[in-house]
């Protein structure tokens, strides 16, 4: 994930996002919550298709939910690249030892998260199955369910970064302003 250079991060994320978006633990939790909500929209679309597909309502609902999810997550991801100054987003070869260690921790944590998610999906499938040996599910719902799982797996490291990131130190030029 990601392939930015340090110069690109400094150029594009020097003033974005506003410091108030990530300066406190509370604001970072809000950021992670918004990102998680964008992932949840994908899951909602799978549930909608489970019950309503095939229908035009299911199709348009899916487009709307995934469109909203993409826009929301693009903003959250962009904010997290700026907030972490590249721990999220920088190409691996540009990370220093702290950033590389932090990224490894995020990947380890998100792996645990993905395992929990897969177990939860397995439990849901078992519950949906019940006593029946055959369950009819629209193909679209299966596709969107897998898609939501992949999307969640991909964005978990960035959400964890928002939750685990300590308060960022002030930049030198900000110190001079004080």
């Amino acid at each position, binding site marked *: 994930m990601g392939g930015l250079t340090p110069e690109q991060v400094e150029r594009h994320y020097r003033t974005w996002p506003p410091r108030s978006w990530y300066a406190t633990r509370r604001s970072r939790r809000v950021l992670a919550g918004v990102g998680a909500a964008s992932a949840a929209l994908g899951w909602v679309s799978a549930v909608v298709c489970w019950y309503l597909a095939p229908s035009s309502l299911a199709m348009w609902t899916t487009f709307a939910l995934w469109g909203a999810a993409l826009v929301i997550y693009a903003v959250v991801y962009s904010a997290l690249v700026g907030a972490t100054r590249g721990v999220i987003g920088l190409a691996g070869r540009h990370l*220093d*030892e*702290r*950033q590389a260690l932090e990224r490894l921790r995020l990947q380890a944590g998100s792996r645990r998260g993905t395992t929990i998610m897969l177990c939860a999906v397995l439990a849901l499938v078992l519950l949906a199955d019940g006593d029946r040996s055959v369950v009819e599910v629209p193909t679209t719902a299966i596709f969107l369910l897998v898609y939501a799982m992949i999307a969640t797996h991909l964005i978990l490291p960035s959400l964890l970064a928002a939750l685990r990131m*300590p308060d960022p*130190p*002030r*930049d*030198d030029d900000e110190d001079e302003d004080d």
Partner: protein
Amino acid sequence: MVATEDVYNRISVLRAERGVSRKDLATALGVHYQTVGYLERGEYSPSLHLALRIAAYFEVPLEVVFSLKPFPRLGSEVK
């Protein structure tokens, strides 16, 4: 399980004394300037390699920059 022993340092004192900005120090060490900030706040303990390079940059022995015990406050030894 990762050990969480505290490592104290005097990077900010040395940096202020030498008039070196965080960015200049970070550039010299090849790390991100936020990493210097986290080091100064004691929220990140450097690798031995980075610690040695920090000491070399300030041209002081390693134990002048890093310690397993808190450094005495400046002036506390003056009677």
